[in-house]
C-alpha cells in the first residue's frame, strides 16, 4: 500500500508557504510562479491555514472592496486537515473527497514537510493499481497458462 511518504519521495519536499501577513498580491504571484494551486500559511512553525486559487476567486466576488494589498489571513481557509507520511494514499483520497479539499499539508511532529495535492494522490493510486494488475497477470502467466 502506498503512503504519503512515497508521494513526497517522488515530488520532493519543497514546501512553498506564505505568512498570514503576506499580501494577496504576493501569494498569487508565488502560486503563478511555481505553477501551484495553493500555498500553506505558516505563523512561525504553525500551520494556520491554506490559501488556494479557489479561496481567492470565491472571495473576490463577495467583497468587492477586496484589495491585493490585504493580508492572506482575510481570505485563507483556516480549518486545515493534515496528514503524516505514514498515512496511506487511500486515506488521503477519502479525506480529500469527503471534505472537498484539493490539498493536504504533511506534518512530522511540529513541522510541515510537504503539501500534497489531489493530483499527486490520484497519480499514486492509479500507478498502484497498474502494478497490482501487472502482478496478477504475471501470476496467471507463470502459474496457470
Amino acid at each position: 500500500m502506498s503512503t504519503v511518504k512515497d508521494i513526497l519521495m517522488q515530488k520532493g519536499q519543497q514546501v512553498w508557504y506564505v505568512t498570514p501577513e503576506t499580501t494577496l498580491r504576493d501569494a498569487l504571484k508565488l502560486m503563478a510562479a511555481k505553477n501551484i494551486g495553493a500555498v500553506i500559511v505558516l505563523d512561525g512553525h504553525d500551520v494556520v491555514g491554506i490559501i488556494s486559487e479557489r479561496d481567492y476567486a470565491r472571495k473576490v466576488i463577495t467583497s468587492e472592496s477586496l484589495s491585493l494589498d490585504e493580508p492572506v489571513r482575510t481570505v485563507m481557509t483556516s480549518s486545515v486537515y493534515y496528514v503524516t507520511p505514514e498515512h496511506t494514499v487511500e486515506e488521503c483520497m477519502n479525506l480529500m473527497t469527503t471534505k472537498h479539499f484539493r490539498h493536504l499539508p504533511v506534518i512530522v511532529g511540529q513541522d510541515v514537510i510537504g503539501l500534497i495535492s489531489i493530483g499527486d494522490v490520484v497519480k499514486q493510486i492509479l500507478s498502484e493499481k497498474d502494478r497490482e494488475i501487472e502482478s496478477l497477470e504475471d501470476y496467471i502467466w507463470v502459474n496457470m497458462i
Partner: protein
Amino acid sequence: MSYVKNILERKGKSVWTIAPDATVRAALIEMADKGAGALVVIEGDQIVGIFSERDYVRRVAKTDDLGLDQPVRELMSHPVFFARPDQTVEECMRVMTARHFRHLPVLVEDELVGIISIGDVVKSLINEKEMTIRGLENFIAGSSVNH
C-alpha cells in the same frame, strides 16, 4: 474499457456556459453558484473558449489588477480541446495530463453535449482498474478450485 459517454450517463449532460461579453465578475459568480471551476464560453452556438478560476487568478497575479469588469473574452483560454462520446477515458486522461487541462467539453458534431472534469476521468479510471483487478482475482480463485 470506459468511454466518455459512460461518464456523461452518470453525471448528466448539464454544462455551465457564459457569453464572451459577460464580465469576469458575472462569470465568477456563476462558477460559485454552480460549484464549478470552469465555464464553457459560447457565442451564438459556437464554443469560443473555456474560462476557469485558474485563468482568472493567474491574470490577477500578472497584471496586479482585479479586473472584474473585463469581458470573459479577454481572459478565456482558447483554442479548446474537445472529447467525443465514443472516446475512451484513457485517451482523455492523456490529453488532460499532457496539456494540463482540468476540463474537456464533449461534442457531438458541433453540438455541446456535456463537459468532463479530471475528477470524473480519474474516478472512472480507478473504477475500471478495480474491476480488472477483481476479474483477475476471480479468474485465479476460480481456476485454483478446478485444479
